[in-house]
């Protein structure tokens, strides 16, 4: 069957345990519902479809699912990742400090050109905030990456964050394709679904 999308982006959520990564990925909907069965076995990843500049983009979003506790986040986990959300909890100072450690971990194990974004998440109440928004912004400037505060519980900025990250990945890919007419595979899968009615082929798929 012809592909139903133009781009496929693999995204990861990274950060300390308990910062609400699961919120960011798994609680877009405030009235999330887990049957006994689903909550027992847990969720591995999600596929979501968005549209950017008329292109259909599939996002495959992975959570570390507690692996960070055992410091087992290594090359295997990062393989093929094109975007990483670095998540901390605005009520948890330690999780904010550890963003720097996570960035070092990414530099060590992930592809050098992976797009990153920092998310200050507030699953808890604003009155328990210990990390100001300014400090989050400052950290992001220091590393030259984007920053947003999100409230997964109220769905504030969560969607925007994913769209922003996807847009940055796409922008980087568009640029690469402009500068090099024949780019090599860099963990990036491009599927061209442009219909070529004039030729004998109705669908042409390119894996760059």
């Amino acid at each position, binding site marked *: *069957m012809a*592909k*139903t*999308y133009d781009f*496929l982006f693999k995204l990861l959520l990274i950060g300390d345990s308990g910062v609400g990564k699961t919120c960011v990925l*798994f609680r*877009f*909907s405030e*009235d*999330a*519902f*887990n*049957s*006994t*069965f*689903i909550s*027992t*076995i*847990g*969720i*591995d*990843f*999600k*596929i*979501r*479809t*968005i*549209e950017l500049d008329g292109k*259909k983009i*599939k996002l*495959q979003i992975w959570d570390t*699912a507690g692996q960070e506790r055992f410091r087992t986040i290594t090359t295997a986990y990062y393989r093929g990742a094109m975007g990483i959300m670095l998540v901390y909890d605005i009520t948890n100072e330690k999780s904010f400090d550890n963003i720097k450690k996570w960035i070092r971990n990414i530099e060590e194990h992930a592809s050098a050109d992976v797009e990153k974004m920092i998310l200050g998440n507030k699953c808890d109440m604003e009155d328990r905030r210990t990390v100001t928004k300014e400090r989050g912004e400052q950290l992001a400037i220091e590393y030259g990456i984007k920053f947003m505060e999100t409230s997964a519980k109220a*769905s504030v900025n*969560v*969607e*925007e964050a*994913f*769209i922003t990250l996807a847009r940055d990945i796409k922008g980087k890919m568009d640029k690469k394709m402009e500068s090099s007419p024949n780019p090599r595979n860099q963990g990036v899968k491009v599927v061209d679904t442009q219909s070529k009615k004039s030729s004998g082929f109705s669908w042409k798929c390119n894996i760059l």
Partner: protein
Amino acid sequence: MAALDDISTQRRDPPDGEEDKSLQDLLNAEGKNIKSLVCQRCQCKVLRPNLGQHVQKELFLPHMKKKSEQQGAMDGETLKEFWVVDDMYTFENVGFTNTVNDIKYLICADCEVGPIGWHDLSKKKEFYIALDRVHHI
């Protein structure tokens, strides 16, 4: 996930009693789904029209809701009517559970209700959604 859905899907509330008619009303001549598949609970779009192939197959799925205090997590039912796709990225929005005995169960990406479907890791090109566990609109 309102914004993403606003872009990729159009949520429509099915008129009461209008959705989920007989099987024949859901199939086109090739046995594909005429209608979109959406979550029964939150209307999140799972699959666009004409992308799923209807198949009859017996698969056991645990219940979506706990029906009684005595019910165990693995209690469920055998279902027979499914839509199948050969590539997981054909789905508009869907979640995959961790693997249990080589099986990954499919759930709603937004509200996480499920299992709505089934994937056997040994059959790389078969992803099933149970007709009874989604709405068709």
